[in-house]
């Protein structure tokens, strides 16, 4: 009863004096539970579509699998705001969403791909074509493509982060293939016959390619099963936060700020414009980057406003960070609400441009000032909202939330003060 009353109060922006930190944290955990559960559901739908595709490869079944992958990104990207502060997510995330990847590790690549011998010796390892290979002085038996081979041996092989063997982007590559269009129109265009049997098989090793795709998808489902469980009732993600609501509020704000600023605005958006390089595109095989960025931004808004709309139309809501901050500093809360809405709108404008025919990789081109500007406008909005997030931190009188270890020379209790 109390929860729903507060939720209603927050809708009408009434003074949020009754908001308890533990209730805000509970909402946060409830959204995580719903979003990871949705990620798992959509990953299982993807798995089912891939099974159907592999049983009867065709343009139609491939298209259905690709559609399922794009749908699976919708809830998952909204969970990225749980990174940067939740240790179980931070320690796990690389298995699920690592990028960029040297796709030649996994399968055949175009001759223009290069990098055959130097730098990353495994960049063109092509495990699908090679049932046995040398890795860091050891002979690896890859005769059977197993989950352990992908997650324990190939993932980050030889310490190279671009040796990504698992997760969404590995599956994306296996469904779309390389995008060889640079900053021109078009995504990856892998033929369904890459999975055909007998003489119909293109690019060889169709059976091993199918096994790889099936195993990588199973690993994704397994990883998401773990994380969905971690946020369910009594899950470790939830109990860790509720044991220390102050620290949890700090983790929430750290996630909001770090995702908005460094990760999304910086590494995924600004760097690509800086280098004008489509290799810096996040969902580069499928040209789905605009959606990934948008749902990252929406995830920030979800956590701030304490609400989430599920893939089946159901919704979660409750006392929010916005309520908590509004009780202490209504101006900052209102401004941050406005700014987050603006960044979501700017990210949506990128989606509109894509719908109009300008793909995200085309926006990166050095001779496309309008495209560059679309991205940089959203970057500016994300930067602006992070400044307000910092003011929210001040309003909540949290210590520097990015500070994981609280002992410091300048800390009030330290010897130097």
């Amino acid at each position, binding site marked *: 009863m109390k929860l729903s009353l507060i939720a209603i109060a927050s809708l009408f922006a009434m003074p949020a004096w009754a908001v308890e930190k533990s209730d805000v944290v509970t909402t946060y955990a409830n959204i995580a539970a719903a979003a990871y559960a949705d990620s798992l559901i959509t990953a299982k739908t993807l798995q089912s579509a891939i099974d159907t595709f592999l049983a009867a490869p065709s343009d139609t079944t491939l298209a259905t699998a690709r559609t399922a992958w794009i749908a699976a990104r919708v809830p998952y990207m909204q969970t990225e705001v749980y990174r940067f502060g939740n240790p179980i997510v931070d320690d796990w995330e690389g298995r699920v969403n690592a990028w960029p990847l040297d796709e030649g590790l996994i399968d055949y690549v175009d001759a223009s791909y290069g990098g055959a011998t130097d730098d990353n010796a495994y960049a063109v390892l092509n495990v699908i074509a090679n049932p046995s290979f040398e890795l860091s002085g050891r002979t690896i038996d890859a005769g059977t493509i197993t989950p352990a081979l992908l997650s324990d041996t190939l993932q980050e092989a030889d310490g190279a982060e671009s040796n990504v063997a698992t997760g969404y982007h590995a599956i994306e590559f296996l469904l779309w293939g390389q995008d060889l269009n640079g900053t021109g129109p078009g995504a990856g265009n892998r033929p369904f016959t890459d999975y055909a049997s007998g003489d119909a098989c293109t690019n060889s090793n169709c059976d091993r390619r199918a096994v790889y795709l099936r195993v990588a998808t199973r690993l994704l489902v397994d990883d998401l099963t773990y994380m969905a469980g971690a946020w369910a009732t009594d899950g470790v993600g939830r109990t860790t936060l509720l044991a220390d609501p102050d620290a949890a509020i700090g983790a929430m704000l750290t996630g909001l700020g770090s995702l908005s600023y460094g990760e999304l605005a910086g590494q995924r958006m600004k760097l690509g414009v800086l280098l004008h*390089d489509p290799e810096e595109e996040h969902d580069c095989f499928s040209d789905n980057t605009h959606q990934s960025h948008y749902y990252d931004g929406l995830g920030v808004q979800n956590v701030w406003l304490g609400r989430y709309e599920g893939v089946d139309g159901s919704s979660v809501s409750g006392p929010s960070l916005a309520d908590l901050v509004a009780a202490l500093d209504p101006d900052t809360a209102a401004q941050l609400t406005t700014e987050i809405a603006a960044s979501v709108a700017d990210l949506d404008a990128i989606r509109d441009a894509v719908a109009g025919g300008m793909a995200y990789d085309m926006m990166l081109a050095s001779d496309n000032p309008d495209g560059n500007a679309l991205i940089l406008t959203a970057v500016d909005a994300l930067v602006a909202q992070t400044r307000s997030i910092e003011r929210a931190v001040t309003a909540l009188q949290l210590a520097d939330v990015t500070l994981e270890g609280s*002992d*410091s020379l*300048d800390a009030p209790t330290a010897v130097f003060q």
Partner: protein
Amino acid sequence: MQNIPCRPIVLSAALGIAVLALSGQTAPADLTTAHLSVTPRTADEAARIAAVTAPTTDFSKPEPFETNPGGAASVRARGNADAFSQPSGNISFERELDFKVGDGLFRKIWVAAPASTLVSDGLGPLFNARSCQSCHIKDGRGHPPVGDEHAVSMFLRVSVPATSDAPIAQIEQYLADHGDPATRTSPHPVYGGQLQDFSTPGVAAEYRLQIDYTEQPVTLSGGETASLRVPTYTAADLGYGPLGDDTMLSPRVAPPMIGLGLIEALPAADILALADPTDANGDGISGRAQIVWSREDDRPMLGRFGLKAGAPSIREQSAAAFAGDIGISSPLFSDASGDCTAQQPACIAAPNGNTGTADMTEVGADSLDLVTFYARNLAVPERRGVEDTTVLRGKQIFYETGCTACHTPKFVTDRLTDQPEQSFQLIWPYTDVLLHDMGPGLADNRPESGASGQEWRTAPLWGIGLTEQVSGHATFLHDGRARSLLEAVLWHGGEAQAQRDAVVAMPPADRAALIAFLESL
């Protein structure tokens, strides 16, 4: 003028008798001039710093703040290979963006010119690696090649004795003016400052690194034994003719990247105060300051970075690595041909990437600054198990054996006006940032600036216990010859011979405790 891409001019103080008498009291003022934006310490602060950095004598419990080796910039020690890849714990969201963009550049795979991406080309023509990250694997320690693999995270520096008519460099003049009878060296006339085993199409690579090891048993107390592998380095498959008999080679693995900004933020005066070039205190340890010429500030500066402290700042170290290791020019090293010499004409003539950036170098000032910022803010992970009784016992042994004579536990960084992450932090790097004679066993016999062929900069020990977790190997020292922390200790000679001998002789349980302490760092 010949391009000297990898280091300042090389010269030696190896004659061993008259060395630079540099200490906090006698150092020329310009050596203590900060290159960062520093707020001077007050007398009150200096007194508090002296108190807090005094070595502990109480090993019954951890010291305050000992868990955070990087002060407030420390981060949670992640349990996976990402433990060295986190931004300073106290970084703001705004500056985290610069860190992330710098991270992207650090991982960036450079391509040969000409390429469609004007900003990303310029690789080589001679190079050791295509990206920063491919040597600094997971921002951690490089390793010698295993089996037949290429030596990506390791290479050989090269030089020859200077000819008598070689022009006197500024740093040589400076050191001579301060009483150093230097042996002068020059980059190799054909191969330049280091050997690159890769090249762009149409240009011959310089060599292939061949390492042969022989095992050397060591008898320890309590019936224990160890075995050290003694390396022999051969520059095989030379692409430009023989090196010549007087050529000096120095093998180097890529050092870990954590905590560099904190080392840079140490007051030069605090490091110089530890120098004892003539062993005036009679402890057998004669730390010497490396003095190098700063390209950026155009003056002599304290060397801090690199295995012989050959670079005075992170920015110069980064620019030198771009030039020497990847063949990427920058505003500090503007030659697009990297380490190519005039006697490698195909290399000089190869297309370059000095297009597409505002500075008309292959990496522009903005990008160099971002990489510098990234390197400055790679955080030191928190220690694990500081309260463990074995760890505390090992700490006591570490102190009482005299390891702290060079591996200085504690410092306080300068107050910096524009680097809040590094400003005024109590840090625990376990290095004095000075050069020490490590004996003939570890010697590369190749002088570098003020460092002799037997001298190396004391390596920071923070994070060393996470090496295997981050890098998938546990090899140590400048060339990765040690296969465990114990082997690394046993390789110590020269000024550290007495400490090494003490470790050999101590009861096995104490030796194990010492290693447990190192593993907790």
